[in-house]
């Protein structure tokens, strides 16, 4: 739930002065931002820039979820982490870096995997959710938790030289399941370990994702809902796609939902909720 709207301190006014002068944000937008909380699911290639720009902008509280530790092959894209933090849980490493940038933001690390048993409570404890995860089961889990908790979901993904961004479950628009009622066959899913990713591509998608979160949390309005942004880094080209409306027959956000509690998403997707191994049946 949003916190109380405390007035801006003199130091806050100095710190945020360059965005306070924007009529589209202003003091009221900044107050809404600092009264809001955002759950960042995944502190990797997307989560790092998302959390970095949300902390810099003065979001009130950031929940940072990641079960993994920092590894050397993360550092080409996960820019909040450092060589000195190799082996440290990513959520803790991120929280610590963000504290140095903006000590006014409360950064809460959750060193755990989002799961059907903890997701709903975590999502309920925040106003907006940024899906920065790296696997199919978590994408469905985050979506369903957002629908059940009634929270807007800003979702981005990146692989190789491409990225995708959309806002789900916001202002009557579709949810992730409206677009993708069935999970993809596990053998068609490529992860960053197998397919690779140019580090700056999640950087671009993550900053765009942070913008959409800021617009929702500050009340500037997110125009990305009902549309998807596709990015092709090789061509340097963006494409704006008009998406279908909410599906009244959607299993989770439809008029007669069959999914009314969180499920077993690894079973639903036939794959494991880690980036490390592709499909359960390969284990």
């Amino acid at each position, binding site marked *: 739930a949003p916190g109380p709207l405390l007035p801006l301190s003199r130091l806050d006014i100095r710190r945020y002065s360059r965005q306070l002068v924007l009529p589209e944000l202003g003091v009221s937008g900044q107050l809404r931002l600092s009264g809001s909380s955002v759950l960042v699911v*995944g502190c*990797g*290639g*997307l*989560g790092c820039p998302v959390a970095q720009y949300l902390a810099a902008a003065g979001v009130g509280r950031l929940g940072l979820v990641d079960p993994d530790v920092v590894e050397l092959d993360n550092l080409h894209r996960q820019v909040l982490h450092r060589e000195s933090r190799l082996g440290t849980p990513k959520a803790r490493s991120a929280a610590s870096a963000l504290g140095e940038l903006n000590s006014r933001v409360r950064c809460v690390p959750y060193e755990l995997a989002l799961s059907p048993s903890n997701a709903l409570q975590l999502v309920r404890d925040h106003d907006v959710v940024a899906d*920065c*995860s*790296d*696997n*199919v089961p978590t*994408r469905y889990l985050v979506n369903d938790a957002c629908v059940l908790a009634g929270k807007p979901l800003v979702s*981005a*993904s*990146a*692989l*190789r030289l*491409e*990225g*995708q961004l959309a806002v789900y479950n916001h202002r009557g628009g579709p949810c992730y399941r409206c*677009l*993708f*009622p*069935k*999970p*993809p*066959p596990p*053998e*068609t*899913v*490529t*992860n*960053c370990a197998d*397919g690779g*990713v140019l580090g700056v591509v*999640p950087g671009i998608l993550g900053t765009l994702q942070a913008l959409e979160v800021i617009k929702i949390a500050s009340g500037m309005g997110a125009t990305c809902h009902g549309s*998807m942004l*596709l990015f*092709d880094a090789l061509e340097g080209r963006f*494409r*704006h*796609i*008009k*998406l*279908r409306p909410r599906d009244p027959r959607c299993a989770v956000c439809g008029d007669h939902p069959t999914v009314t509690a969180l499920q077993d998403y690894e079973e639903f997707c036939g794959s494991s909720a880690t*980036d490390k191994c592709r499909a359960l049946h390969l284990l």
Partner: protein
Amino acid sequence: MAAPLSLQLEFGGGAELLFDGIRKHQVTLPSQKKPWDVRNLLVWIKENLLKERPELFVQGDSVRPGILVLINDADWELMGELDYLLQDQDNVVFISTLHGG
């Protein structure tokens, strides 16, 4: 008889890997008795463009789950999906959803 149709087909998000890594295909569908719809197009792609492992692209008479189809930059669901009647110079995109972060 429906006249031949020129289409730009695009594949992305990894779907291009089923088409020799080529993202853009300028194709001409031959004239046929009935007008071309997307259902026919999928059959034509399977028979003429798809090199291997068709199950990674089509499933039944539609695309496999996780592929988003865009007709002139709009979600095909808005256009009638499989029943959409293709027009000359249409741009049809098949994009695999990404899940990486």
